[in-house]
């Protein structure tokens, strides 16, 4: 974690802003493509970012998606001020969801969000406090070491 951060960019996410749902994930994808990252890495992180962003939109008041690139990995931190998660272990189970019938009818809340983020990434951490908010930290390793030729 002591590696130098080569690139950092932050994107705001607003709770309940379904109209712009997915915009932060799309913006991060454009940055990663522009930097010429391996398409497989871009794809894995895009899946994770979309899930994380929609969680903030569905449950929280506001949040941020931070993209941090180090020589060895692409790191994303999604932090929100929201209701927090009571039972993280339960939330990490596939199929578990607190989504309302309306959210499910729109295709969200299949209980695959968090497990999907974990599956798509190399490291995954979740920190949550009820009434305060939730922070997700996940990363994908860059294949080749930073000795000049990626």
């Amino acid at each position, binding site marked *: 974690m002591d590696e130098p951060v080569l*690139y950092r960019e932050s994107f705001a996410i607003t709770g309940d802003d379904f109209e712009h749902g997915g915009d932060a994930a799309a913006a991060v994808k454009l940055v990663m493509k522009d930097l010429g990252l391996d398409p497989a890495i871009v794809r894995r992180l895009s899946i994770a970012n979309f899930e994380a962003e929609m969680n903030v939109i569905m449950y929280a008041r506001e949040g941020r998606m931070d993209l941090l690139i180090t020589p060895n990995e692409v790191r994303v931190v999604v932090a929100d001020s929201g209701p927090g998660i009571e039972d993280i272990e339960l939330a990490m189970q596939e199929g578990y969801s607190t989504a309302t019938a309306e959210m499910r009818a729109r295709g969200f809340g299949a209980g695959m969000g968090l497990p999907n983020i974990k599956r798509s990434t190399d490291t995954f951490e979740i920190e949550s406090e009820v009434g305060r908010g939730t922070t997700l930290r996940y990363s994908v390793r860059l294949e080749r070491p930073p000795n000049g030729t990626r």
Partner: protein
Amino acid sequence: MDSAIHSVIREEGRCVGCVDCSKACPTKAIRVRDDLMRIDPATCIDCGECIRACRYDAVHARTSSPSDLKRFKYTVAVPSTTIYTQFGSDFTPAQVAGALVTANGFDSFYDVTWMCEMVSRAVDTYLSECGGPWPKISVTCPAIIRLILIRYPDLVPHLIPVHTPRELAAKVARRKFAAALGMPPDDIGIFYITPCSAMMQSIVAPVGLAESHFDGAFSIAALYGPILRALKVDAHGLDERFNPSGLAWAMSGGETAGMRNKNSLSVTGVHDVTSVFDTIEAGKFQNVDFIEAYVCPDGCVSGQLLVEGRYAARRTLQRMQARMKGQSAVAEEKVRSMFRDHFFDMEGEIKAPAIKPMTETLQQAIRRRQEKHRLLDQLPKKDCAACGAPDCTTLAEDVLAGEAQLTDCVFVKLKEYEAGRR
């Protein structure tokens, strides 16, 4: 990529250097330099949006010329299903096909509509047997394939390796006519009669094949007049040789309508297609089996090389199909056994282009991006394209690549001028 293999050509003397084509290009492949449009062959997908956008008729599709027919002892026209939508519903497909042959100097014609239905069955078989990744994407539209190769290389494994009806028809036609006439296959010229520039390009520089089974292609618009003059309303009824389900391929939704597998989605127009591809890249639509995608709105029926407007053409198609209902269908068992015998296989594999050797390190890429934003801050973000690039971001990228200067922007230049006067 050599520009000679692209199908879009600029007509010298007509281009006035406006920016309509460069603004219309979905892959930002066009720049206007010295009052002339220039296409970057590496990013052009031959979609023909520039042909559509040009008000000066300065961009054309490269097609075969009548003299190409003379290179062969016997010539066969294989028309796109869209040709039957171009002359109103009073004429049957057989009459249109007949007029196409007699009026344009072909010796014969070969129908593609039956092959369309066979390919529908073959794709059904493929979908029921293949593994992921999902959804699978149709290879019918050649501009879609190029869009995927250039902009969405990680979607290449989604492309269905079942050959297109037109290429299979050309392959069968050559074999059939060679046997019937007792001629060497090379003496027979097989020509596609195409509604769009992308099809032409797929013949000159095909994807997934060593080479195309066609020897060339003619634009439907170019042959329209002679066909119209040769058409005759006669007492003949519908020709049973034509397959109504295959005719539907002229329009988006036709491909999916002909399939047993209904877990599909049809998307048209380059804007909507990129939106759907972005969604697939984000891991969505994995519950969809099949995606039919065309860069032209409504599919082939709105190709740039057609004459009839797409709404009139759609209506003609629907009336024709209503009349033909009841006729069908290919023997499914036979298609399945042909599928196992590799009849529908492509001769090569569609491969994502080799990733360009990284000329820059991650650190350099980051510096380039930061520099790009620094340049962009100095640009007006009006995306007026007067500089020759389609928008301010592209100009910034071109400046970084050493292909343009910041002062190509008239607003930057004006600011410099005003600063100099003070």
